[in-house]
Structure formats: structure tokens, C-alpha cells
């Protein structure tokens, strides 16, 4: 059983080789730093500023690591007892330390930390609020976290009056549309537990704290489609509490906003043509040759996929949609979800007035397509653990849907552009 280290150099070399291989193989994931939520491949001034601070800490610690690590490696290799005789030799000089070395090293550590502290302090103030000179250009959003979805309100944008003459704020869910190139001031609130608003490519996270008004700012350099996610554990479906941020240029944003202000779209045979004319036109986007971007192409060109979603589905069945609208009321969906201009009146759950124009559903867990909508509406409990639509809706109200019901509801939801 007993092996001394010096007697078995081979086993030690094998160990060293394994360790080396491990260290070389490990950073295999190094170049995978450009994901949808990368904090390295950033696209906005706030995230870029935070990245600069991170790089500073990286360089400083890397230099310290090289110096201290070399000293440690050198000491280990140089003073290692290599033979039995070495091990049994008389103990070395029993020295107790050197105050000058100690004080020198403490001084060096403090100096290294000052290098980190200065940009840190600057960035704390810069990241906290929209810079004073850009305040006039800033755009305001209210974001509210729920278990497990997000509500986005546009506090300066009133909707068109509905049939009763009521106006409200432009409200959307899970997909935040912002103007690119403008600082966005976001007021963060929560309706239940703590959530954390995080779009890594645009800005670091800020929590949504109950009984506390938090805020943050971010800006997208250019039009784009960004992934975000809740970063604070908030219960069962925390992992799938996702959202998207879509940044548009000024013209597109104005078009989008104009459409959002409208009441929900009505599809009937007679009205079809009229609706076609009213649809938003995106100056910078050309429908691609093969038709609408769908399915897997969300990943390839997500912004184009989002734009395609703004148009009515290719084949709409007004009768089926009308049946879906009827079921939406009969099956009590309308009690929780707002569909402005239609029967939906609920305000505590996602606003569906223009849900058909979003790329994702179910807290941005699923891509918004017929297959996923069918899955989601048929059995929400099997898609998103613990979600309120299942627990508070389907289970409490004893909702049962036949496949035909679901198909009609899907058609209706998809028509809400």
C-alpha cells in the first residue's frame, strides 16, 4: 500500500499530464462567449461600460496571478525534497519572516486595488442613471415583474379610446420594444416576489424589489433583438421567466407604437381589405424572397422574424377566428387577459391586445407559432411549471378545451396583430 512520491515518478508524471490536459481542454468553452445573453459581446453603452470595468479587474488579477503563481510554483519546485536523503536532512533554518517583505507586499496589493477602484467608482455613477446631457433624449418605460412574466408599460403613450371612450397606457407583455440609440429609463416594480431585470447585452441586472422603487437605464446601439431573463430565484418557473427586448430605429418604432395604440384587430371577410391597409409598414425591412421568416429562422435572423410577425398570418379563417373570440369569453379567458376593444377586460395578467405580433409566448418560453400556441393553450401546466393560467385559471375554473376549441382560440390569438 505504501508508495513514496519519489519512488514512483511515473505515476506523478501521469498525474501532471492529466492535470495539464485538463487545464488545456477546460477553456474549450472559451470561444463560446457570443451567446444571446453574452456579457462580453455587448451592444449598448451601459453593458460596455460594465465590461470595461470587468476587463480592468481581469488584467489586474491576471498580472497578480502570474506574479504570485510563479512565486508559488517556483517555491514548490525549487524547495521540494526530491530524494529520501533530502527529506531526512536536517531541518532548514527556522526563520520567522521578514517585515520589509510583508509591508512591501501589502503596499503592492493596495496599489493593485486602487487600479481597480478608480474605474469602479466612475462606473458606479455612470451606470446608475441616464447621463445628464442625454436626459432630454431619454425614453421612459415601466417594467413590472410577475410570477412568471413581465409587463411593460409606456407611461407617455396613451392608447386610442376604445368603444367606451376609455384610454390607457400602451401596455405589452414579455417583449419590450424600445427605440434604438436613445437612453431608456426603466422604472422597475414587482407585483409579487423579487425578480431581476437582466438583458446582458444591454445592461447589468437590477432587482425588482417589493415596496421599493428601483430604476435603471440602458441603450441599444442599433436596432436588434435581445434576450433577457429573470436573474433572481422567484419560485417554480424562475428558469423560464424570460423576455425579449426589440430595439427599432425611430421610424419603425413610431409605426409599431401607432399600431399598439390601436384597439384589437377584427378579422371579418368584409373588413379584411381595410385591415390590410392599416397594417404597419416597416421602412427598413424587406420581406425576404422565400416568404415569411418562421420556425428555426428566429435564431438566424430574430429581428426579421419579429418584423414578419407584425403582419397578419397568411391564411386567416374569419369564421374560426370569430369562434375563437367567442370561446375566449365563454372559457373565461377574458376575465384575466385584456384585449382592448374586444371582450377581454382582465388587467392582472398579460395584455393580449397585440399578442399575435409577438415572437414569443408564455413568458418568452416558447416561440409564437401554431404548434406552440396549441401546446400552451391545451395544457399550460405541462409547459410552464406552476403557472397561474393553469393553477388559477384552468384548475380553479374547471376549464376543459377540445382540440377544436384550441384550434379556434389559436386562430383568434394569432389574429391579434
Amino acid at each position: 500500500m505504501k508508495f513514496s512520491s519519489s519512488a514512483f515518478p511515473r505515476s506523478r508524471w501521469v498525474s501532471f499530464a492529466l492535470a495539464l490536459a485538463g487545464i488545456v481542454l477546460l477553456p474549450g468553452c472559451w470561444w463560446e462567449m457570443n451567446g444571446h445573453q453574452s456579457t462580453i459581446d455587448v451592444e449598448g453603452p451601459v453593458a460596455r461600460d460594465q465590461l470595461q470595468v470587468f476587463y480592468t479587474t481581469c488584467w489586474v488579477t491576471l498580472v497578480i496571478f502570474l506574479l504570485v503563481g510563479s512565486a508559488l510554483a517556483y517555491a514548490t519546485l525549487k524547495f521540494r525534497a526530491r530524494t529520501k536523503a533530502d527529506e531526512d536532512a536536517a531541518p532548514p533554518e527556522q526563520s520567522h519572516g521578514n517585515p520589509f517583505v510583508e509591508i512591501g507586499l501589502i503596499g503592492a496589493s493596495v496599489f493593485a486595488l486602487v487600479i481597480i477602484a478608480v474605474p469602479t467608482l466612475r462606473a458606479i455613477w455612470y451606470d446608475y442613471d441616464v447621463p445628464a446631457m442625454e436626459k432630454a433624449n431619454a425614453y421612459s418605460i415601466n417594467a413590472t415583474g410577475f410570477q412568471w412574466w413581465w409587463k411593460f408599460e409606456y407611461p407617455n403613450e396613451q392608447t386610442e379610446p376604445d368603444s367606451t371612450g376609455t384610454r390607457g397606457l400602451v401596455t405589452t407583455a414579455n417583449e419590450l420594444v424600445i427605440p434604438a440609440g436613445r437612453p431608456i429609463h426603466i422604472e422597475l416594480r414587482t407585483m409579487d416576489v423579487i425578480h431581476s431585470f437582466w438583458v446582458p447585452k444591454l445592461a447589468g441586472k437590477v432587482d425588482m424589489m417589493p415596496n421599493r422603487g428601483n430604476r435603471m437605464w440602458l441603450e441599444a446601439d442599433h436596432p436588434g433583438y435581445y434576450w433577457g431573463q429573470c436573474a433572481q430565484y422567484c419560485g417554480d418557473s424562475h428558469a423560464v421567466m424570460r423576455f425579449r427586448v426589440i430595439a427599432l430605429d425611430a421610424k419603425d418604432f413610431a409605426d409599431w407604437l401607432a399600431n399598439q395604440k390601436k384597439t384589437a384587430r377584427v378579422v371579418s371577410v368584409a373588413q379584411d381589405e381595410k385591415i390590410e391597409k392599416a397594417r404597419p409598414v416597416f421602412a427598413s425591412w424587406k420581406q425576404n424572397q422565400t416568404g415569411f421568416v418562421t420556425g428555426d429562422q428566429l435564431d438566424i435572423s430574430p429581428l426579421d422574424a419579429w418584423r414578419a410577425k407584425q403582419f397578419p398570418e397568411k391564411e386567416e379563417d374569419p369564421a374560426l377566428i370569430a369562434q375563437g373570440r367567442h370561446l375566449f369569453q365563454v372559457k373565461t379567458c377574458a376575465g384575466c387577459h385584456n384585449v382592448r376593444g374586444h371582450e377581454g377586460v382582465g388587467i392582472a395578467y398579460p395584455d393580449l391586445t397585440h399578442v399575435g405580433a409577438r415572437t414569443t409566448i408564455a413568458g418568452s418560453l416558447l416561440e409564437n407559432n401554431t404548434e406552440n400556441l396549441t401546446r400552451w393553450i391545451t395544457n399550460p401546466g405541462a409547459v410552464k411549471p406552476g403557472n397561474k393560467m393553469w393553477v388559477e385559471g384552468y384548475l380553479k375554473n374547471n376549464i376543459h378545451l377540445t382540440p377544436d376549441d384550441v384550434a379556434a382560440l389559436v386562430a383568434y390569438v394569432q389574429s391579434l396583430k
Partner: protein
Amino acid sequence: MHDALVKTDFITEEKHAAGRHLVLWRPTAKTGLMGWLTTVDHKRIGFLYGISALFFFLVGGVEALLIRLQLAVPNNTLLTAEQYNRMFTMHGTTMIFLAIMPLSAAFFNFIMPLQIGARDVAFPRLNAFSYWTFLVGAIIVNIGWFMKDGPPNGGWFGYTPLTTKTFIPGHSIDLWVMGLQLLGVASIAASLNFIVTIINLRAPGMTMMRLPVFTWMTLVTSFLIVLAFPAITIALVELMMDRLFGTNFFEVSNGGMPILWQHLFWVFGHPEVYILILPAMGIISEILPTFSRKPLFGYPIVVFSGACIGFLGFGVWSHHMFTTGLGTVTTAAFALATMAIAVPTGVKIFNWIGTLWGGRLRMRTPMMFALGFVWLFMMGGFSGIMHSAAPADSQQHDSYFVVAHFHYVLIGGSLFALLAGIHYWFPLMFGRKVSEFWGKFSFWVIFIGFNTTFFPMHFLGLNGMPRRTFTYDANMGWNNGNLIATIGACFLGVGIAIYFTIMIYTYFKGERVGRDVWDARTLEWSLPNPPPEYNFAVIPTVHARDAWWYEKHHQDEIKKENEEHASAEAAHGGIHMPHQSIYPLLSAIGILIWAIGVAVIDPSPEPGIHLKLGTVFVGFAFMFVSVYLWALEGADGYHIHPEPESAAPALSPEAHK
């Protein structure tokens, strides 16, 4: 001091001890179940802590492997969201409170009294009570696995309002609250005991600046526990009141302030981080000098930096809350304080390298783990510095980057040191030595497995993967990193399995060794192994910082001195030993009963005395009667007269390899 103790009245009460009536029965069994249940011997209690900690380490490890298996591939369905959330909550809670802390406590108990030349801790029965209460707390935290409501699922820091009754109505959070509360009681009682022991029971000549660094770190850690746990106690009481009696400390609808929880929790939680790492630093500061065969470089500054970390550790808690909207000035203040704490931490690393410098390093297994510790802790320290830069932290917070960071300091740091400590002190505890080959083999498997698991997590975090997510999408660029981490985790698991298999094998069949197998420097190595119940036949007199090293090199002087002390002690009636007692165990059982009443049993809708309240009453009565009898039986003891030790320190440093 030693003379004063021997002469105190209560110690010479030997004649009263016999013939007590039935209620105040004094157990005397030294072996068998009763021997263990009533033991007050610090070494046996240390062993019990160690075994319990290793059991829960195994449980926490299985939870960790399930977590990693779930995340091996995107959109995996091995665990449901609910199961996964319970798993990471229990993994964190178990590893921190039921594995690392009690494993440190095992070393405090076993080693610290031996290092200061004491025969036991100051309050032996309180020490037993601490252990049994710890066990009760551990049972309450884990009992949920066998209940309908399941184990806790609020995360290990249990943020309100998620943990209020509104959002988690079942008992799972009650178990967590009550269990942690009891673990706090156990920790505070044990820490007070250690503080009094270190202050009062040092052998003659053992001045504070001659204390071994491990004992110093025990002292600092104990003060941290005594000062930090009240904060979480308050937080837990408030949460318990909210959950049981409908108060509104954290109930948002009634104006409660969830942010209050975070402040209270982290005022405890950050010192807790140092409670986990300081004992490890103490162990490393024992092992490196022993195997470098020279004294610790800059002893005073290592001790001072340890104490400094203890103080600063109370002033950095809000760096766990950089994203909660603290405002600019607060964020800046806590960022700078956090950077400041890196200095005393760095100082320790410099001094460890200074200890190696000019030494003659014997590369034994404990040394390998200790060197592994220095490397990995250094890396964990660097990612810690990155977090102190608050703007960078706003991207890293609650991402896998943080997961990588705290596993580097808790596994690469605390656990590596504890594994080193087990190897190092195993010959002293059991008189057998672990095979060098298998020890080093397990080291390399653990080292490689650890890095393969946690290094990729830095990149996952920087690539935007949030922690505590039971699943992730395939298109996020996280697939490779997660798969590598899972493979690494299995490797790490194998390494740990090898490590403990060897330990068990060695316990039964390992190579027998004599006293002081490593040619060490501190007093515990002056004892035969395993050490006798009374530890020191003669209380040693300490002449230098590395007391045992001095004794080995001044044998004539020590021999003469010991003979004088032996005759002085014999004149006072021999070695005084504390009586065993059943009451610490019974008190803890009383606590278990009422804790079950509070946290496990459903309240009845009807008014009056029902099962829940009844159980609480019975438990309290049981506890009070036990504590009363504990007080009534008195702190008396008995004397033993060991044979004059033939194997007095007559060993030359070269005589035993």
C-alpha cells in the same frame, strides 16, 4: 492558572459523586452506545461532528450530482422544476450548515484543546449539548424529504417575500427556518465554549502570541459565530412570526419590507463565509510549516490578518446586494470595503509562499491538498475581486460566474483544507496513516474533477447563464460548458468516493504509525495516538511558539519540568475528569419534540389545545426538566491516576518516518 484549577472546590468533590439517587443517575459507560450518547470527551464529540458532517457531505454531494445531471443537456427532464429547486436549496443549506461548518467544528473540538495543552473544553456537557442540538437541527432541515410538503425550496438564503406563506404555503420553509434556528443555537453554544476554552484553559506559558494559528482561527471563527448568528436568528424569528402568527415583517401587502431580510441575512451571511474559510486557513497554516519543516512565515501578521478579516467581514455584507438598488454612495462604500478585505486575504497567501520559501518540502498527501488549496483559493479570491467592482458585478451577480467563484473558495478553499486536515490528523486520531499513493491519487482526481466542473462555469456566467435555473434553451451557447461541468462533477464525485473509501480502509487496516508521524510542530503531536481520554498525562509547559518542536529540541529541560509537574498534580489528587451526562442529549430531544410541533405538524382549525400546541408544550416541558436536572446534577467529576507515561517525548525528529 493550572494550579488554580486543580485546587478549586468543585473539582475535589470526588467523594460526593458516588451514590446519587435515580434521577441524577451518572452514566459511566465508556464504550458502547451509552458511552457515545453520554460522552463529554471533546475528542469523541469531535468524532461525532466529523461523522455527521461527512454523512451530510455525502447527501449534499448526491444533491449536487443530481443538479449537474439535470443540467447536462438543454431542456432536460430528469428533475421537475420543483424537484430541482428543492435540490439546490438543500444542496446549499446542507453543504454550508451540515457539512463544512460541522467538519470545522470537528477539528475545533478534536484538535484545539490538544493544541493548547488542555484536558477538555471548558464546558464539556455544553459541548455535548451543542452536538446533539446540531443533530436535531440537521434532522429538522432534512425531515422534509419524508413529508408531503417536501424539503425546503426557497434557496439557501431564503429571500422574502418568496419564503412567506403567501408564496410557499406548505411546511417546507418552516422546516428550513426552524432547522437553521437550532443550528444557530448549537453553533453559538459551541463557540462560547471554544472562546472560554482558548482564553482560560491554555497550558502555562501558552501566551496568545504562542497559540498555534489553527487555534487562533478557531478563536476568531468562534467570535464571528457568536456575533453573526444573532442577525440571522432575528431574521428567522421574524420570518417564523410572519408564517405562524401572521405578523407583517416581510408581508408586502401589509407594508412589510423584504429588503430587511436581505440586510439581516447578509449581516450574518458574509461573516458566515469567513466562518467557513478561516478554519481552513488555520489548517493550512499548520500543514505548510510542518511539511516545509520551518515555522510559519510572519506568524504575527498571519494572525493579525485573520482577525482583520474577521472585523472587515462584518462591513461588506451589502456586496451581496449590489443589484437591489442601494444607490451610488452605498454601492461605492461597500465596493471599496470589499476590495479592502482582499488585502489581509492576500497577505495570508504571501505568507504561505514565504513559509515554503527556503524550506525542505516533504510532498506528502496533506501537503498536496494544502498546496491545491493555495492555488484554488487564490483563483477564487481573484474572481472575488472581480465581484467587488460593483458595475462588473451587476453582470455577474446571480449568474454562473458567481457559482464558479463561491465553489472555488468553498470547495477549492474550505473543503480542500478540510480534506488536507483529515489526512494530516488521521494518524493522531486513529494511529494509522493513509497510503501515500492512494492519497495522492485521490488528490489528483479531485483536483482535476473540481477544475473541470467549475472552471467552465466562469464562462457560462459571462455568457449570461443565470444560476438556479432548472433548464436552459439549446440556442444560448451554454451546451458545451454545461456538459463539461457535468462530466467534471462525475469525476469529482469519483475522486471523493476514492478519498473516503481509502479513509475507511485505513481506519480498519491502514499502516500503524507511532507518535508524531509528520515530525510536526504543535502540542497535539506530543501525544500518543490515539490520545488518551485525559489527553496530557502531565500538563505541558510552553516555552516557544512551536511548542512541540521546542520540546523535541530541548528534551532534558522538558523531562525535568514534566516530572515536577507530575508530582505537583499527584499531590492534588490526580487528573480531574468531568462526569458523563445524559442530560445534554435529553435536552436536545426536548428541543426536537417542540421543533417538530412548530415546524412539522399542521395547525388545527379548531381553537384550544390540539396536537400542534400540545407537542410544543410537551417538548418544552421535556427540555426544561432536562436542563433543570442537568443543572442539579452539578459539574463534579472524578480523578484518574494514569501510569507515568513511558513514551514521554523521548523521540528525536529523525526517529520516525
